[in-house]
């Protein structure tokens, strides 16, 4: 989505031309001097990433949100569960910048606590989905015999109605997990597993396609001819080369996971009421919509801003990691 730029300083063709032109005038014997230090692939990626302003800002805002949510409580040390009934239903003021709720709990502290849960759920669920998706994708692409069955399985999962199933899973497995791990840990594990198990399919498809293409390349043949084992082949040669689609899926996966978790909390099937997440705060705020609309706005803006920044980040990463776009 970025504008293809033509920057002569970084364009390899121009650079080569310049060196050749330079060499003609230089006396023989003094070899070509590289006028720039050698560049790594990741430096190129970073250069391309920087030109995508939206992605850069997305990255900055996402880091700021994560830092604010996890480091904020060190500065803003009010306990999010502390009930001060005499200070209830306050609007934004100096002692409570976001106001207080119907029990006098400080909304800023609750936003930070809720953000910790929402962001951790998003990142953990994304990691699980990424692991499953990459595993299925690499296995299907690498072992021809497993390709058919695994891809049919992916198709079947894609045909499942995900939101209804998630809701059903929430309803049915809440009690035993609560009993086994305690109410907060149990729900956390349940939500992360539910989101992870229902969102690995796009990653698997993309990774499989890339692995299939890689398998035909010469370096794989070379590696095979010197007797590389399958395990080494996958970990040393295949996985590093499919890293870029996996990274793009990762950013987009965080966004989907955060939205799904908030949706579950909003429908009343997520975390328990005394355990804030952004979706839960939004849900609680809708009861007081007419009197205190700001209680809905804070968590809503937090969710939307996080997802928006992550989406822009993924967009920029996709451009930066694609060598066809990067070269231009």
């Amino acid at each position, binding site marked *: *989505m970025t504008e293809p730029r033509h920057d002569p300083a970084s364009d390899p063709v121009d650079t080569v031309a310049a060196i050749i032109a330079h060499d003609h005038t230089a006396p023989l014997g003094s070899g070509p001097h590289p006028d720039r230090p050698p560049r790594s692939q990741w430096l190129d990626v970073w250069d391309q990433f920087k030109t995508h302003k939206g992605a850069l800002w997305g990255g900055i805002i996402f880091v700021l949100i994560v830092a604010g949510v996890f480091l904020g409580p060190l500065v803003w040390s009010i306990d999010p569960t502390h009930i001060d009934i005499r200070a209830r239903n306050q609007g934004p003021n100096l002692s409570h910048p976001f106001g207080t709720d119907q029990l006098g709990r400080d909304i800023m502290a609750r936003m930070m606590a809720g953000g910790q849960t929402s962001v951790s759920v998003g990142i953990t669920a994304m990691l699980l989905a990424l692991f499953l998706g990459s595993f299925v994708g690499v296995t299907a692409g690498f072992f021809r015999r497993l390709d058919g069955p695994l891809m049919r399985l992916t198709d079947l999962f894609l045909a499942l109605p995900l939101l209804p*199933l998630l809701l059903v899973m929430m309803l049915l497995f809440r009690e035993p997990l609560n009993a086994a791990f305690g109410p907060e840990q149990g729900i956390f594990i349940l939500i992360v597993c539910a989101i992870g198990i229902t969102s690995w399919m796009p990653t698997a498809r993309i990774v499989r396609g890339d692995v299939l293409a890689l398998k035909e390349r010469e370096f794989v043949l070379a590696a095979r001819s010197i007797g590389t084992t399958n395990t080494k082949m996958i970990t040393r040669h295949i996985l590093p080369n499919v890293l870029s689609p996996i990274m793009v899926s990762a950013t987009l996966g965080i966004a989907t996971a955060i939205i799904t978790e908030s*949706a579950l909390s909003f429908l009343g099937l997520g975390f328990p009421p005394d355990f804030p997440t952004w979706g839960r705060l939004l849900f609680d705020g809708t009861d007081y919509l007419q009197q205190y609309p700001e209680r809905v706005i804070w968590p809503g803006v937090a*969710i939307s801003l996080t997802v928006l920044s992550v989406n*822009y980040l993924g967009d920029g990463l996709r451009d930066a990691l694609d060598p066809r776009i990067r070269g231009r």
Partner: protein
Amino acid sequence: MLTFTIRRLVLAVPTLLFIALVIFLLLELAPGDPMAQVPLTVPPEVKEKMRLALGLGEPAYIRFWKWIVQFYWIEPQVLFDHIFGTHFAEGKLRVISWQTRSPVMDIVVQRIPQTLWVVGTAYVVAILIALPIGIYSAYRQYSWFDQLGTFVSMVGFSVPPFFSGVLVIVIFSVNLGWFPSIYDTTLKVVDWDSFMLQLQQMIMPVMVLALQITAQISRFMRASMLDNLNQDYVRTARAKGLGEYTVVMLHVLRNSMIPVVTVIALGVPAIFGGAIITEQVFKVNGIGQLLIGAIQANDLPMVQTLAFIFAILIVLFNLIADVLYGILDPRIRYD
């Protein structure tokens, strides 16, 4: 083409059976007790009888088979009877809801018009908005209009419906007082005034749903137009001296519509799923709200049937998308 369609139809049957099995097993393995809502004063032996009355005494595979038979064999007969006035399904046992003790499909049929009205209107509105946006932003790539379109669709992707819905309620219902915040499904359209009321209460849910759909479809339209605008046949058309309108709106647009039409078809079931949240926000009593209510009341036959209806929609529209692709694009021959 016909053999392909038939092959896909045949393949859809095992897919649907597998999904039915997954849904059934999920409910089966779950530890939830349908008797949990029954008061504690009811003695255990009565509870046991109530369980048997619900059909819970049989082994799982018998119940699965019975449900399949009821859903695939008896319910179509009921529909057939309803249309042609015959009596095939008389006296046969249908899928019964535990909540209301009435057939599940009857309740679903009552709820579907509300969902179809809101979701269908939103989909049509979104397509009508998205296509021109996509076409123009591709034609003027990187113009301010394109940048704005990119930003708006990013926002549409990122703002979840439970926030945008609540936000429009705050703005238009609480502050401005233009529209009612709750959708009244008892309203019957008989004259101009009631039509205006219906329109007013539909605007907000349609707006919220349409924002999301527009975001997706306009991106696809733009990408597809961009792919086609650089093709050789476009240069040929221009070189022949055809007007800019003819080139873009006839040559390029018709070719770019091929993938977009399939995306539109693929999006229909997702919309039904996504509308669950929107229905909840605006209190539209469509099938999404029916599902939430059934889940909260532990009404397993209802949950099972509704989840399966969603699955049928997904499989069906996947099939439609594939067939449409083959019909629209003569380069693709499945046979």
